[in-house]
């Protein structure tokens, strides 16, 4: 899928302000305990790690587990320190990664 993640970052913030960031990725979060149409178990494929880097430094990381909804939604906060890119990365059991970026202007 082309646009497989939605992130919300305030476009502007004051230095030192606490900003809320939300991130949602399109992912089936297949649990591995569900039989498919042929009766066999569908192999587990979940996003196991999510991370957010702010201007190169990691500011948030989460481990995800089975029984977390498809298209997982995460909301977290960080302190706006300087203008720069935010990079979001979701890694799944197939070794694939979904990446998204956003930029913030801090004044």
């Amino acid at each position: 899928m082309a646009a497989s993640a939605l992130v919300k970052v305030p476009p502007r913030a004051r230095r030192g302000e606490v900003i809320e960031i939300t991130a949602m990725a399109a992912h089936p979060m297949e649990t591995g305990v569900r039989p498919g149409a042929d009766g066999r178990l569908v192999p587990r494929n979940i996003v196991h790690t999510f991370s957010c880097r702010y201007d190169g430094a990691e500011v948030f990381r989460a481990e995800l587990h089975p029984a977390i909804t498809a298209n997982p939604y995460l909301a977290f906060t960080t302190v706006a320190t300087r203008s720069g890119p935010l990079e979001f990365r979701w890694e799944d059991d197939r070794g694939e990664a979904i990446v998204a970026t956003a930029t913030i202007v801090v004044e």
Partner: protein
Amino acid sequence: MKRRVGVVLACATWLAGAAGAGGLAPEQRRSGFESMGPATQAMQRDDAANPGMLSVSDGAARWGRAEGPAGRACADCHGDARLSMRGAAARHPRWDETLGRAVGLSQRIALCRARHQQVPGGAPEGVERLSLSAWVAHASRGLPVRPDPDPRLDAVRERGRHLFERRMGQLDLSCADCHDARWGRRLGGSTIPQGHANGYPLYRLEWQALGSLQRRLRNCMNGVRAEPWPADAPEWIELEAFLQARGEALPVEAPAVRP
């Protein structure tokens, strides 16, 4: 048996007393949104939290992607969907001249793809049709549902009304038994909604995915243990056309979120 006749008579009296299309007066119409919990409502309102928006952005990318032997994209003919497709979801189903029958928005997209891009239209619950429908329907968000005045659709809606009111399945229930006569009451832990079609394609938390109106109707038919019609059968469109008239003037919510 005697008791059931009593229930049927009570229903018939109730229905006879209600005015307007399908037993719902215009001022009685309530979108399913109103009977949801505040958390689910907040999820639908916030585009960053509504998972249906993932399909909308996927649809936007597909809209601009050249496909098929002619190498044409939807955008090459239709331009910016946010302008050119505004209102399309509020008007469908419409009459298709070539097929000589009514088609819904998702079928319309599949037909357009097959005719002009020469690519397979895709399965009704396939990602192409769902994403493109979500993108096109999103362009009508907030507009009131307006049935197409084409007189050829009158008979289609009338057949839809007949299907809506016909008892079916092992439980011997019609759509109207719940959604006209008992909306607002409880079925197990859930409030029975009026069953409007103003948010499709929508993200259903139970499905963990975006789905079409056909999928939702199929769920209900399975629920009363009736045999659903095949995909894209005319019956689905007849029901959809009737539901659209029944929910006239409700705002288009696509992509809605439902529990």
